[in-house]
């Protein structure tokens, strides 16, 4: 069982955290002239477990590439990045969480963003998110 305490040693503030983005949860932002993930993408799982991400530093250490996170049933999804230090400023804890993922998946870079996800927190993360891979329908 992973420790659910914030872990800035394993995942320093400058590290990008990759979040899968559902293709239905993308809208066009005329202000920024680009597609953006909606705030709905940035919430905890329905089963109550914290929001899943993949930490870029851990991914690089284990040879995991962004495209690997979008294989199989995730192939229509996109991948966006937020920065660990930013989400910590929102009161979130960020830590490695390799054991808490779907049974058919095993990514050593799997990590958690834990903490209260009020609507303004979700919206803030959506505004910060930068695309790594846009969903197929938007590319």
């Amino acid at each position, binding site marked *: 069982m992973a420790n659910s305490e914030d872990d800035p040693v394993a995942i320093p503030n400058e590290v990008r955290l990759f979040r899968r983005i*559902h293709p*239905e*949860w*993308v*809208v*066009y*932002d*005329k*202000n*920024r002239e680009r597609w*953006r993930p*909606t*705030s*709905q993408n940035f*919430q905890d*799982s*329905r*089963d109550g477990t914290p929001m899943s991400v993949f930490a870029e530093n851990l991914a690089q250490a284990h040879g995991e590439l962004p495209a690997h996170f979008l294989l199989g*049933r995730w192939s229509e999804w996109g991948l966006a990045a937020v920065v660990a230090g930013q989400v910590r400023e929102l009161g979130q804890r960020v830590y490695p969480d390799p054991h808490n993922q779907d049974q058919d998946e095993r990514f050593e870079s799997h990590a958690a963003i834990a903490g209260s996800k009020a*609507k*303004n927190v979700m*919206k803030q993360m959506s*505004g910060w998110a930068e695309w790594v891979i846009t969903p197929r329908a938007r590319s």
Partner: protein
Amino acid sequence: MASLATRGSMRMDGLVDRRNEISTVEFEGSSASFFRAETGGRKPLLVRIRISGNLAPRMLVTIENAPAPPWLEPSIQSIGRLLMLPRNWDLEDAPPVQVSSAQWALEGLARFMGDASAAPQWTPTRAGGLQADWHQDGIDLEIAFDCEYPGGYVLFSDLRDSASDWEGPLASNLEKLRSIAESRLNGQL
């Protein structure tokens, strides 16, 4: 007369917009009407929504006495498509979008949108609701309609003045929303 047909199952009744004197009335059991009384020399607006088919439900919308508010038709089109999302559309066992959410959402928008307001971009929420997004003219505006806030919960940011950001229930912020609709939501997306 303008008309459109879109897939989806939808039942609306009791829609009321006190500002524009818009209201819905139940029509032939599985249909509804969306009616704006004649005011200020404008023609009355009547939108009829008819549901048919149990196995493959279709939502037929007829807009009479056009023009309808420009935001209405694209909103109905978008919502109709989202109503067809199956359970587990998010791979996390999300329920389908609820018909009641569609009613709440159109009711909510009708309370503050102007005739020149741009239609929002509609997306589903994980709780079977709908979210309306506008990101234009220097503002970010999101309104979620679901079982937690059936009347709508608003998040507003002014990119030119972050000190004026606010959030709260739609019903408690109608004057602010009407002002935003008039000044910042004009034009087509």
